[in-house]
């Protein structure tokens, strides 16, 4: 019995280490290539660490083609769409969790429809709407679509969180003459910190990485966001892979930072959406 347990344990570690290798090799290859001079990009056998190694790719990536501008555009779009997603979906979630009104169920089903329809299928009409509203080639065109594509899922998630806030608090506030707005801002929101953190993470990742809509809606190079900029590095520069991955690593810094800071909420966000689905 004991022996079989030991064998099982060794086997588990063996499998985990193989998995780690599979995950790590491409990541290591990306990082090391970012430090390779262009002449060494396809040199084989691959070295564990490039010799000579260079920072040139990072400097070039940062100084060519408005890369700094793309980064800044992405920061603006991400900040705006994340804060709007939090605001709009928490308002919707509050109405569905705490208010009584006619047609509540129907409206909730309409909202859920947003989780079923694949975003890419909407690209054509969204492109037309964006033209009509003068949002083509405009960062607001990205922000509003990102918020729309996110609110169904995030409202669904927050509704569950808000329903768990104890009702007694609310009733006490009602007796003191508190309106739904006071209950929303003074009771429900302050008690839903972790749930809101999950929404922040979800919409941050979505807006920071979104490629398809940005690629359609942005024409001018000065309005490009990072994912577009990085994808163009591949086609525009006869693929200088060192620069592609240097740029990628720069784009990954905020994601990794958020991941490390909020690791707890990442898992929580996944399990809430996972189990409730």
């Amino acid at each position, binding site marked *: 019995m004991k022996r079989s347990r030991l064998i099982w344990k060794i086997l588990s570690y063996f499998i985990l280490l193989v998995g780690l290798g599979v995950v790590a090799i491409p990541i290591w290859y990306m990082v090391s290539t970012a430090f390779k001079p262009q002449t060494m990009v396809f040199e084989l056998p691959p070295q564990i660490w490039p010799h000579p190694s260079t920072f040139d790719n990072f400097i070039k990536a940062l100084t060519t083609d408005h890369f700094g501008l793309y980064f800044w555009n992405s920061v603006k779009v991400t900040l705006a769409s994340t804060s709007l997603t939090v605001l709009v979906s928490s308002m*919707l979630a509050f109405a569905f969790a705490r208010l009584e009104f006619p047609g509540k169920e129907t409206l909730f089903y309409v909202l859920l429809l947003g989780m079923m329809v694949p975003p890419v299928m909407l*690209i054509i009409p969204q492109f037309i709407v964006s033209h009509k509203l003068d949002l083509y080639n405009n960062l607001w065109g990205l922000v509003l679509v990102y918020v729309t594509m996110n609110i169904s899922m995030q409202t669904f998630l927050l509704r569950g969180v808000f329903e768990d806030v104890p009702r007694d608090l609310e009733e006490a506030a009602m007796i003191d003459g508190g309106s739904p707005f006071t209950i929303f801002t003074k009771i429900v929101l302050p008690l839903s910190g972790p749930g809101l953190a999950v929404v922040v993470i979800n919409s941050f990742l979505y807006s920071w990485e979104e490629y398809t809509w940005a690629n359609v809606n942005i024409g001018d190079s000065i309005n490009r966001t990072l994912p577009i900029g990085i994808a163009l590095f591949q086609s525009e520069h006869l693929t200088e892979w060192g620069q592609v991955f240097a740029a*990628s690593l720069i784009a990954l810094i905020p994601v990794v930072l958020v991941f490390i800071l909020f690791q707890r909420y990442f898992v929580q966000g996944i399990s809430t959406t996972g189990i409730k689905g």
Partner: protein
Amino acid sequence: MRNRKARNQIIPAIIFLLPGFALLGVFFIGPLLYSFRISFFNWNFAHPDRSVFVGLSNYIAQIKSPIFQRAVLNTTVYTVITVIVKMVLGFATALILNQALRGRTFFRVSYYLPVITSWVIVSLLFTYMFSGMGGLVNYFLKDVMHIISKNIMWLADDILALVPVVLVDIWKGVGWAAVIFLAGLQGIPSEMLEAAQVDGANRWQRLTAIMLPMMRGTLVFLLVVLVLGGLNAYVPFQLITKGAPQDLTHSILTLMYRATFSRMDFGSGSAISYLLTIFVFILSLVQLKLLRKPAGE
């Protein structure tokens, strides 16, 4: 009392719902219906009023087109392979990580790194690793394993080009499936497993008789989400194969993109979107029906 409360809350409800539903109306529901309309026209983007109604011919033309059929085949094969592999590997990983092991947080975090790396970056990374000349994969197969004798031009072949697309999805997606399975496994009361163990159930029996039936909800959720994601594959196809060679390696959505934005044929593009949606809808119903059967029946 309840009635009065309901009446009082209509105005606040409107205020709370308005921003969200305004956005949904303009950028979601409106477009959804508009796109349906467009799919029946030979759409003129510059002068929509000059668009010509063509009935179902956009749909028929697509269904008959060999390129569309190939895109459907590619997307289906990609979905079937990636979903099965991600579910199996994700479940195995979750089972292993669900034990009391030293360093399991480290492994969990490491396995999650590909998940948070963006699709654009991982697609470019796999394009690079699968380069015909001097790519890491060819080097490994030829010079380390000696399985092949000369370099494979992965992206020049209409079937081999799908290999990096499938692998990138698996590489990026197993960690996510594993974390969701892990959450499901942690929802199983440990007393149940201990009781089974006392009764002499071995690992395999505990897995099939307790864990899998208890995780039906998680399984359904993952299957539906992963299949939906697979059928909607876009970025890896767009960045790795770009449809080449000869438009044989499109996914349904890269083909839609090409019809719409390279050829400005919005009618066909919309028809492709709706064909995909119908397909997705039917499949979701089938999946739910198959999996919602309560255990033991």
